[in-house]
């Protein structure tokens, strides 16, 4: 991986981060009527997926799709216009946020219903197999949606029919306001999919470059072995806040789910955590804080100019 390539990826990352911060600011001012699920902290996997996607690959998303869409869209304005339900929007203002599709960029389907997209992706993969089309289908789900029966059913179908597909489980531990331990027993995804003979990989470093390398290899494995591959990505959805109530006068921790994040205030500061929870912080080991802050400022100015 050359330094030039790494810089290009960093630019994409910062564009995605700063675009989300702009949208968050607009959201706080009440600009949007449709619910938007920001994905601050999810950028590493989104940038990695968009980087490894070839011209024939197809991406199937869920309700939290902003990071994948922003990583592929050429015009931030067209995406924001879509969230504003304007005719000039990316999908003519008909899809809003949770169902946003960008077929020209390989994003072929998004669903707001948990688990709904998993079987649709299996259908896409089946059709690809029948037509002998190049490329691979990738589908994104979460630790909540994987509780739906179709997570298992779709993988049984895919494995039974030798369909290459990457199943990416973004595991942020939360479903709405409920942590995993508050709603179910732990699930060892590796063992679960292993029982079906499906290869499994966990990506947990939050390192965009490492993810690009591993996804490239996993994509090749799925295609060569004609098998689904399941990838769990533990991550943190940043933007949490505290809600003060009589019961919790110091404020109760609320993990970010959707809507504006009141704790994310500074558009100018690209960092949301000074730890590996923030994939931008992880990139400091390649470029240093000063360089990243400078580039982030430039990116923000550029995006604002685009929107002006």
């Amino acid at each position, binding site marked *: 991986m050359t330094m030039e390539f790494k810089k290009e990826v960093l630019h994409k990352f910062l564009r995605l981060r700063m675009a989300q911060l702009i949208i968050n600011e607009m959201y706080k001012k009440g600009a949007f009527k449709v619910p938007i699920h920001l994905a601050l902290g999810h950028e590493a996997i989104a940038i990695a997926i968009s980087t490894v996607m070839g011209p024939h690959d*197809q991406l199937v998303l869920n309700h939290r799709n902003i990071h994948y869409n922003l990583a592929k869209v050429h015009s931030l304005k067209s995406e924001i216009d879509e969230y504003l339900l304007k005719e000039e929007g990316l999908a003519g203002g008909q899809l809003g946020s949770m169902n946003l599709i960008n077929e020209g960029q390989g994003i072929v389907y998004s669903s707001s219903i948990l688990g709904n997209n998993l*079987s*649709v992706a299996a259908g896409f993969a089946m*059709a690809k197999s*029948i037509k002998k089309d190049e490329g691979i289908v990738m589908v994104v789900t979460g630790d909540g949606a994987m509780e739906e029966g*179709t997570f298992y059913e779709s993988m049984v179908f895919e494995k039974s029919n030798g369909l290459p597909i990457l199943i990416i489980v973004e595991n942020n531990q939360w479903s709405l306001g409920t942590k995993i331990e508050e709603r179910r027993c732990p699930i060892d995804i590796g063992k679960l999919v292993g029982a079906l003979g499906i290869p499994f990989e966990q990506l947990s470093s939050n390192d965009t470059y490492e993810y690009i390398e591993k996804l490239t290899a996993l994509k090749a494995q799925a295609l060569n072995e004609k098998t689904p591959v399941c990838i769990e990505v533990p991550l943190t959805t940043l933007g949490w806040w505290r809600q003060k109530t009589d019961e919790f006068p110091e404020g109760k921790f609320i993990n970010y789910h959707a809507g504006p994040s009141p704790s994310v205030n500074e558009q100018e500061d690209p960092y949301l955590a000074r730890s590996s929870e923030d994939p931008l912080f992880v990139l400091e080991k390649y470029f240093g804080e000063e360089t990243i802050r400078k580039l982030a400022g430039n990116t923000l100015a550029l995006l604002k100019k685009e929107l002006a």
Partner: protein
Amino acid sequence: MKYVEFINDILKKKILEPEHILLFGQNISAGSCISGFTRGLKVKPGGRIINTPNCENTLCGIGFGSMMNGVPAIFFMKQQDFLLLGIDQLVNTYNIIRRTTPKASFTIMPVIVDSGYEGPQSALNNLADFCSIARIPGYTVTNKIDAQEIINKYLIAPGFRIIGISQRLFKTEIIDVPCVHMNEERSIFQYTKGGDVTIVCFNLSLPHGLEIHRRMVQKDVQASVFSINAAMPIPWDEIVANVQKTKQVIIIDDLKSINAPWQSLLNALYSQTKMKSPIVVQRSFEGYWCRPHHDQLQMDYDRVISDLDLQKDFVSGKGGAA
């Protein structure tokens, strides 16, 4: 030839047309092949027939995904009740797709278990209810003509729809009755022309309509018999025009639902014709409906004809063609 054999024959020919096609469902190429419904189906080398695991919701999603990715898909289903598991896909995914111009088709062909009571969990079997949840195009098949026309027109035409076949008719001889008219959409078929009364059969009730017509002929009463093969309300112009001439309508419906497309027809007839009181014959589910009932719609043909005779200015046997 039996009803199921005839439909199987049409399917065999039609699925050989596309270069790529996906046929799938439980038991479709194993065991009884859904009692012969899917027996012996073959596709071109570029197609695929998959005997699937039991996962109806997922299978509906797979059909939609295949359709969106350009490969026609047909999901054969032994029992329409199983489709309840796929409602998320039928509603939510279809509502995404319907805004686009589809490149390929997705057709679900369930067997409508209209043959009586199989227990409380097999008591729905109502195509119109399924179609109404997302205004899904749906069609029923009752005889040689409508089977040929509907399956050939819609089975692999781009878009999504459900084509239901009748379990009650499965092992009966296929109804072979000449058709005098069918509309472009193949949602209305007219089997006889008569100027005394209009008989409109919904869902799978055409055999009842043909039987009452046969008895009317013996009494020198001429009826126009229509079958509405669409499960959703449609433009009623042709029926309205006929009733404007006959001024008498008998509606027959063997649906189990309380939501019926004929209610929309009645509204149109009330507002656009001067018809006499309509006669509506439908399945009776008085009291607790989810319990054993007759295998099929119970119809007292003589009573219905007698009721017509009671209409004050009805002139039996004087009707011309309508």
